[in-house]
């Protein structure tokens, strides 16, 4: 009996050890280290960090750029959540109605999701380019010169440019989640609705949306995490510009850490943003819970 327990423990260690070791050493440890650096003035490269207590957080409270960044990130996130959820829901319902070519069309909408973020960002950067971009050239050919805009350089338009880029790439993913949800609705429900004389709009509101509440929940949580961590798209396309208009929290952290040699301060911001994410996710969860009891 004792030998069996020993062998049991030994095999547990053998099975689990590599995962725990790697994950602790190269994921958990640097994460905690990052949080610890938020209490230092570490430059990020050579000089050893000095402990400065909560100075970084004190600086952060008075930092207007940080709040502008946070505001932009949150508004961008809100738009991303709304667009992903609503567009994917509608697209999924439309795709679900198809009798032929369903797989093909679904595949087309999903395709951008398998591409690298670098590819989608470059494609949109090309489309939206002021002088040589496809959109403006087409508008000029059509004689609509005054419609041509500096899509990426105009502070009023650039948030929508980023939004379009992000939504274009991920829409297929969210649609797939809703499509999977639609498969779980029993056929009898549709038949009953049909007998009651419900059209497709009534079916959408009274059968499909209520049945898809769990999927709406999942989608908005994933979209929330995507939105708050928005970073590579900014790095490739606008690099925070024009001015500091498109500085997202993620890009701000990267910019402070790598280009301004202020890793300590960047870590403090990363910590605060992470807490904001947790907070928003908690609020979201509470809202959904209340909504669920309403239904």
């Amino acid at each position: 009996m004792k030998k069996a327990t020993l062998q049991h423990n030994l095999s547990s260690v053998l099975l689990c050890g590599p995962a725990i070791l790697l994950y602790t050493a190269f994921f958990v440890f640097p994460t905690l280290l990052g949080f610890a650096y938020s209490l230092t003035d570490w430059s990020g490269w050579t000089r050893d960090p000095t402990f400065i207590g909560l100075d970084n957080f004190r600086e952060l409270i008075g930092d207007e750029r940080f709040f502008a960044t946070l505001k932009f990130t949150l508004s961008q996130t809100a738009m991303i959540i709304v667009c992903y959820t609503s567009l994917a829901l509608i697209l999924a319902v439309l795709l679900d109605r198809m009798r032929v070519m369903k797989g093909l069309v679904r595949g087309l909408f999903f395709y951008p999701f398998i591409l690298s973020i670098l590819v989608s960002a470059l494609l949109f950067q090309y489309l939206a380019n002021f002088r040589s971009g496809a959109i403006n050239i087409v508008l000029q050919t059509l004689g609509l010169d005054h419609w041509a805009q500096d899509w990426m350089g105009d502070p009023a338009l650039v948030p929508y440019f980023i939004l379009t880029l992000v939504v274009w790439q991920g829409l297929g993913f969210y649609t797939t989640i809703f499509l999977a949800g639609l498969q779980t609705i029993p056929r009898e429900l549709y038949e009953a609705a049909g007998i009651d004389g419900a059209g497709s709009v009534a079916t959408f509101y009274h059968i499909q949306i209520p049945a898809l509440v769990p999927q709406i929940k999942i989608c908005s949580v994933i979209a929330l995490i995507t939105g708050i961590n928005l970073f590579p798209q900014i790095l490739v396309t606008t690099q925070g510009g024009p001015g500091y208009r498109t500085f997202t929290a993620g890009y701000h952290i990267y910019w402070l850490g790598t280009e301004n040699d202020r890793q300590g301060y960047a870590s403090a911001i990363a910590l605060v943003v992470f807490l904001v994410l947790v907070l928003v996710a908690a609020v979201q969860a509470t809202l959904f819970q209340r909504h669920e009891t309403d239904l």
Partner: protein
Amino acid sequence: MSRSKRRLPFFEIFMLLLGLLYVSPCFLALINSFKTLPEIVRSPLSPPTRLVWENYQYIFTGVKLAGPMLNSLLMCFAVIASLITIASMASYALVRHLRHGALWRVFFLAGLTVPFQILMLPLMREFNYLGIGYTYFALWLHYVSYGLPLCLFIYSGFMRSIPIDLEEAARIDGCTPLGTFWRVIFPLLAPCTVTIIVFWGLFIWNDFPQAYVLMGTNKGELAFVQLWRFLSDKYVKNWNYIFAGIVVLSLPITMLYLAMQRRFVKGLTAGAIK
């Protein structure tokens, strides 16, 4: 029947056109990769007047993309093989063996919420301290540890649906715990393994920010890092070369996607649909 009483016959065609319009930026990249730069600027939407293969030539001679592509492929294999082995074994232990398994699961799942930016620079410092900064080995270490939470989540979710009787039968037949795992459990995990291959294969092939940050500006030649380095060098964007590069790097995954679309969709959404 009632649901499709009066369906318009052109609904499907409309959806198909909508889908084609949706991916039209990709077609645009394809046709423009065969044009010269002046022609791209002059007429971006029309098909090329003659096929300019020089763009593709330049991608391999000027940007030197072949080596980095091979490196990326090798990195994919190395990371996927390690992830499958390490994560499947660990999740078996988490679900079936380990005391406080639930606690360990929370410990791993917490990793799903941490974005890369938080650990990016401390990780680089750690790698430099260990003397492996800016190496492929360090990048491999990062990819595997970064991938573990999701892989464990996928594996252990599935593992719980496997009846325990199978293992007991194997044990009675004299199989060791490790032997039971490899001979009985691991083959049953095949659907999860496929999911992980698709997800992380695509992630590592497509990744550029993480590899770019961890490998520095002049070392580390991986497919998309190399392309990014080339285009961020130049003040003026040579779209003809960029499009050729985009096509070359996206072609392999596009072929695989066309061949097994269902696997891709399932693999990429497995974490979210359960």
